[in-house]
C-alpha cells in the first residue's frame, strides 16, 4: 500500500493516503525522508524544496503560495502556505482566515 500519491505530474506536493507518524520514513523519488510531524489522510507533503512565494501546485494548478521556505518531505498546510485567491479578490471577510 502506497503511503503518498502524486495527483498530477506538475504538482509540487504529494498527498498522504494513510495516517503517517512523526519519525516515520517516507520515500520521494527513491530518496528517504523522516517525517517531522504526524500526517492524516489528505494532507500535503512538499515534493521538492519550496521557497517563500512559490506557488503550491496540486491538480496541476496553483492552490496558493508558500509563506516560508520548506524542505522536501515537510508538511504543507496552514502554517506555511496561504490562499492567493482570497487576498487578490478581497474576499477575506467572507471566507475568514486562510
Amino acid at each position, binding site marked *: *500500500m*502506497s503511503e503518498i*500519491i502524486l*495527483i498530477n505530474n506538475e504538482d509540487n506536493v504529494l*498527498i*498522504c*493516503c*494513510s495516517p503517517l507518524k512523526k519519525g516515520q520514513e517516507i520515500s520521494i523519488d527513491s530518496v528517504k525522508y523522516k517525517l517531522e510531524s504526524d500526517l*492524516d*489522510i*489528505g*494532507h*500535503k507533503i512538499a515534493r521538492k524544496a519550496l521557497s517563500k512565494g512559490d506557488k*503550491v501546485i*496540486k*491538480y496541476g*494548478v*496553483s*492552490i*496558493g503560495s508558500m509563506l516560508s521556505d520548506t524542505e522536501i518531505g515537510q508538511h*504543507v*498546510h*496552514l502554517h506555511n*502556505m*496561504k*490562499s*492567493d*485567491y*482570497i487576498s487578490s479578490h*478581497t*474576499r477575506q471577510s*467572507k*471566507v*475568514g482566515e*486562510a
Partner: protein
Amino acid sequence: MKGYLRNNGKKGIRNATLVVYLVECAKHVASKIVDSFDNDSVQLVGFSGCYPNDYALDIMTKLCTHPNVGSTLIVSLGCEGFNREALANAVKDSGRPCSTLVIQQNQGTAKSIVKGKEIVAEQLNSLASTPLVDLEISDIVVGTICGGSDGTSGITANPAVGSCFDHLIDHGATCMFEETGELIGCEDVMIDRAANQVVAANILGAIEKAEIYYQKMGYGSFAPGNAEGGLTTQEEKSMGAYAKSGRSEIQGVIKPGEAPSGKGLYLMDVVPDGEPMFGFPNIADNAEIVEMIASGCHLVLFTTGRGSVVGSAISPIVKVCANPETYENLSDDMDVNAGKILLGESTINETGQEIVNKVIDVCSGKKSKSEQLGHQEFVLTYKRFNHEEDSKLTLKHKGDALC
C-alpha cells in the same frame, strides 16, 4: 449499445413511463398508480407547489420529453396553478403517448387510480414496440455531481470522473458539470479552458452570481472548511470539486433545462438569476440531478466520500465512492470504488477507464446499484431564471458586496 429511438432522432438508454403529479394534493393518486405496477420503468415525479412557476413548467416539460422517457400520465387535482395543458401539448408534440387525469373531473381518488392504471397499462403496451437502434458514445450526454464529499473526494473519485469525461469527450460525447457555488476560486483556471471570450465571461458571471446568492442565503458554502482532510485554501477545496470536469475545453455555460448546443464539455449555472427569492438554489443533491437530466443527461456520475445512497427517476445514477473505508461500509450502494487509488491499487486513469466501462454497461441496459435498489428520488422546487430586471439588481448588489 442500443438506444430507444425518439421522433426527434434522439436516443434513450431507458424507456420510462412517468406518472406526473402537478401539486402535492395529486401525489397520493399518482403514487398509488405507480405502486400498482411491479415495474421500475413506471416512475413517480411531480411538483408540490400550487402556485405556477415558469421554471418548474420548463423543467417538467424537458423531463417528460427526455430521451429516456417513452410516455407520460399527468395527474392533476384540477384547481392547481400548474399549466397542465401546456405540459400535455408539449409531450404530445414530441410524439409520445400522453394522457391527463384530473381527479376533480374523475370522481375522486379511487376512480382516478383505477383510470390511471388503465392508462399506464395501455402506454406500457405501446412502448413495447419502441424501436431500438445502435447507440454510440457520441449519442450520450453525461453529467456529474458530488455529494457527501470528504477529504478524499478531490483526490480520488473526482479526478477519476474527470479522466472518464476526457475519454467520453474524445469519443464525441457531451458532458456537463455544475455546482457553481463550489467552484469559487477556480474561475481563473476555468476561463483558461473556455472555448471563447463569451464563454469565459459567462463563467465569471456565473461564479460571481453564486457568491452573491449564497451570501444572501447566509449559507456557509464559501467559508473555508476546517483543516480536516488536509485542505488549506478555498481554491484547493474548490479544485477538488472542479477536478470532476477533467481537462477538456469548456464549450459553454447552460442554465437548468437548457440542452448543450453541441458536443463536448459544458458548465451548468444552477444559481437562479436576480434577487434571491425562493430559498437555497438547490435544497438537496437530487434537485441538481433533476436539472442535469432536464438538460439531457442520459446518466449522472455521482462522486461521494461520506457515502450518499441516492438514485434518481428517469436517468440512472452511477456512484463513484472516493473513500476506501466508506466503500467497505456501503459497497452494496457503490458502483465504482475510487478509494483504491488511495490504497495504491489503481491509478486515476485506470479508475477513469473503469467508470467509462460502467457508463457503457449502464447505457447498454445493465442496472446501476441505485437502480437495482429501487432508488428513484425526485426533487423539483421553485426557481427563476432570465429576468433582465433581476440581472440589474444582481449587478447593483455585486457593487455593494465589493465595497
